[in-house]
């Protein structure tokens, strides 16, 4: 059981934890965290088989993961912004007397 296979299994485990968290967690913030964790799981799987044998690793998974991290950050930022604006809207409605 070489270490890289173990890292792949961990990556897949993280993907499963994120998927489970996404399905059954309640608050939107937890769902955003689960999506990030699923992303990290996939990146771990990608990086794990990059360095199969020999010293220098295959650079393509590294480039894919780098791009994936920035895309995940952009997606999370947009989701958080929408969540905050939605929260403000709900507060304003609950706070202000007239419903409409």
């Amino acid at each position, binding site marked *: 059981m070489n270490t890289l*296979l173990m890292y*792949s*299994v961990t990556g*897949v*485990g993280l*993907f*499963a934890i994120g*998927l*489970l968290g*996404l*399905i*059954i*967690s*309640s*608050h*939107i913030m*937890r*769902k955003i965290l689960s999506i990030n964790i699923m992303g990290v799981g996939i990146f771990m799987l990608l990086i794990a*088989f*990059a360095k*199969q*044998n020999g010293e*220098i*690793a*295959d*650079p*393509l*998974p*590294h*480039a894919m993961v*780098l*791009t994936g*991290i*920035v*895309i995940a*950050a*952009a*997606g999370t*930022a*947009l989701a*958080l*912004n929408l*969540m*905050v*604006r*939605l*929260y*403000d809207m*709900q507060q304003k409605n609950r706070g202000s007397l007239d419903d409409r």
Partner: protein
Amino acid sequence: MFKNIDLKYEGDAVQQHSSKIIALLSVGAVLFFLITMLIQHPPYEGGIRPFVENKISVSGVTNPVTAVLLNFRVYDTLLELAVLLIAVIAVLPSVNSNLPTLRILSSQQENLVVFALQRWISPALLVFSGYLLWAGASQPGGAFQAGALLAGGCVLMFQTGSYHLNYTSLFIRIALIIGLMVFVSAALALFITEGNLLQYPENYAGVLILIIESFATFSIAVALAALYSSIISTSNVKSRGR
């Protein structure tokens, strides 16, 4: 799964009504199949490493990851900068151009620790991100890492609440798109001169990559800072226009 958008702060971690057992079983099945696949089928040898090795001398940089990211698969990086730009445009407040580009308010409570932290670390961050950008050609480093570091510096500046950037002023808008603009115009220029999109001329590849990378770093830093400040400041979001 996403049916009701729940924003109650006190709610407990897991939805009550949701059938936790079915979710657990299905995710467990997915996990089981994935793990059996990982164990039974070893990965393919090498991937594109042999191709990169014999083409890296032409690519203008020596670090293989930067070569793949900014020369062999440069189209992906360009589209990825577009993704970051989309996220920024979506969160920008609507235009209020009466504010100056940079508003420095002397905030009342002198938060000594944060001020000291800012004064010591910001210059170091600046120099280090410049180094990261420059080292990207040969050792690990590059545009995204340097940009994220600069953005970390900006986040630190925002902590004291005394620095306000008006993200709809012309200067900041130019800063946001300069990375992608340089990329696209370089691509079109090379398209005309070399006849093929994003095909760097052999001896100028390194220089061109560095120019594109530095502009990309600058716009990534401003973009990530804009993403952060759009969430913290209520006045920024609740603009008069709406």
